[in-house]
């Protein structure tokens, strides 16, 4: 008797579950953040800002997952797809390999990956021309430097970060061929994205060697770099998000990478059923990268500097000024 009633309950549950399953074909967005976390004040936080903007405007909530260990990337993506999310955004180059696997298994779902290229029909890859934006902040650094030494601090030592570095060096040398660029990488594991004390030490060592402007392309590690610049009363350049507000007065500018726009656009186009796979490569021309100028740093960027930066920007867009892309160099 009990068994019979249990069966009946199970049947009823199935009956209820069936329409629910059908309903998941509705738009169901998700974001998988990478190491560093969505409050890294930089790369992941930009993605978070984009997702939040979409949620506010459309009223559609999104699911999220923060990767805290390397092994979780696969799990995170797979769980989202399995639970019926059909527009999943993977933040960060490191998710490319797991995403490739998961995207093949869940063909109905749409994926957007930021900072890497995955060549599958249901994946949209968004990459940025970071070297172009870095070129501009490199120019700003060289123009602001009094010691003719500027610094670069990267997160994990990967080609993507070398791309930032190379653009920065070229920009600095463009303004002043004699400028010396000190370079450090924080580490060779993903932990390098979230080690502000190490970032601070690296920054101090570069300041001690005479640098007076440092560009941090290191996710959460950069927070320590910017703090060290403030403590040492030197200049720092933020990355990915506009970080000027963190320490007004010592933040020269930020190399903004519009991850927020990419995330927002991906969600929005998917909701309107206009989402398409393929690769989009966003540079200065598409406003995908740039340098930030706001109330917090307008006293540091002189009119003359701004003029030269805008000129360079126009030249790069027009193709008159070439910036080397480290990842395309090979």
């Amino acid at each position: 008797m009990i068994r019979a009633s249990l069966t009946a309950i199970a049947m009823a549950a199935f009956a209820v579950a069936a329409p629910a399953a059908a309903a998941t074909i509705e738009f169901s967005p998700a974001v998988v953040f990478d190491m560093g976390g969505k409050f890294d004040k930089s790369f992941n936080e930009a993605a978070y800002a984009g997702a939040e903007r979409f949620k506010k405007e459309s009223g559609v909530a999104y699911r999220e997952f923060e990767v805290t260990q390397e092994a979780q990337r696969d799990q995170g993506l797979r769980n989202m797809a399995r639970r019926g999310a059909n527009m999943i955004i993977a933040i960060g180059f490191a998710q490319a390999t797991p995403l490739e696997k998961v995207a093949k298994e869940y063909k109905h779902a749409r994926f957007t990956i930021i900072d890497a290229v995955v060549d599958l029909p249901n994946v949209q890859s968004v990459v940025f021309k970071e070297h172009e934006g870095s070129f501009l902040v490199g120019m700003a650094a060289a123009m602001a430097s009094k010691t003719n030494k500027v610094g670069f601090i990267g997160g994990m030592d990967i080609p993507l970060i070398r791309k930032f570095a190379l653009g920065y060096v070229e920009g600095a040398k463009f303004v002043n061929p004699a400028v010396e660029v000190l370079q450090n990488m924080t580490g060779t594991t993903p932990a390098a994205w979230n080690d502000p004390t190490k970032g601070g030490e690296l920054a101090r060592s570069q300041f001690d060697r005479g640098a007076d402007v440092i560009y941090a392309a290191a996710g959460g590690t950069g927070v320590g770099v910017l703090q060290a610049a403030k403590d040492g009363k030197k200049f720092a350049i933020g990355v990915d998000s506009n970080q000027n507000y963190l320490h007004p007065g010592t933040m020269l500018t930020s190399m903004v990478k519009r991850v927020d726009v990419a995330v927002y656009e991906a969600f929005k186009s998917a909701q309107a059923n206009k989402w398409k796979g393929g690769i989009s490569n966003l540079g200065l021309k598409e406003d995908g990268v740039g340098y930030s100028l706001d109330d917090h740093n307008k006293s540091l960027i002189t009119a003359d500097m701004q003029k030269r930066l805008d000129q360079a920007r126009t030249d790069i867009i027009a193709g008159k000024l070439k910036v080397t892309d480290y990842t395309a160099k090979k």
Partner: protein
Amino acid sequence: MDELVVVISMVGATLRVATPLILAALGGLYAERSGVVDIGLEGKMLGAAFAAAAVAAVSGSALVGLAAAIAVSVALALIHAYASVTHNGNQVVSGMAINIMVAGLAPTLGVAWFHQGGQTPMLKDDARFAPIALPFSRELADVPLLGPLYAEVISGHNLLVYLAVAAVPATAWVVFCTRFGLRLRAVGENPHAVDTAGVSVVWLRYRAMILCGVLCGIAGAYLSTAHSAAFVRDMTAGKGYLALAALIFGKWMPWPTFLACLLFAFTDALQVRLQGVDLFLVGVVPVQFIQAIPYLLTVLLLAGFVGKAAAPRASAIPFVKDR
């Protein structure tokens, strides 16, 4: 002159990186000398770092943050003592449990309280330990060699760095020149003898753990409110284990342990400095290799030069009274 600048900045960096190691290693020294193995240094530091940053962010005072850090760290030390001294539990398991518990609990509380993904808000300048300029550092800075050395290396650190350096002779004095120190060493070697002499083994070990908690608390506060300006997830990054290694390397003696901490910190500073530098005859060494140097050096030194490291004989063995 350029070399001098390099040397001075390296020494400065060494001191800054070594400070939490020194404090934690000395904390471990008290614990292990009393016969309690403490691999929970990492967890205590992390808990203290969180408490310091959270309380400093709310109260706006670095000292209140430091007090909170010490309180949390001592509480964790007492949990360890309760499990492993009062109840004769396995000391390694209890220490590891503290590490795992804090690694999860601190970011969770951070999310609940500050809504910044487990971090604490960035601290304002007056909620951190500011560098202290010692007297005459400005005036003497122009004296060749000694001037900059005094101004940059000795002066200009924050309170906790001086505290860490002062803790070394203080510990040496307590452990080797006081009655408490004598009993502490005895209880780590032969608790039964101490018990026969009518001294409470349990109370001695509790006191050692409290001292350990205080020192780890200061180390944690240094990480989040002096060296950086906020708590982030896993910010101790293995420093507790490194401190433990320094303690073994230093053969459970205060001064050699201090030197071991300085050595570890120095290799770290060296690693930063060697990156991307064109070395004579070698060329630019890949970052990966440079970053492996501190670990290689540690392994080499531990394997080749440390000799026989004899731990306190009763360490890790719970004390059970003879019947």
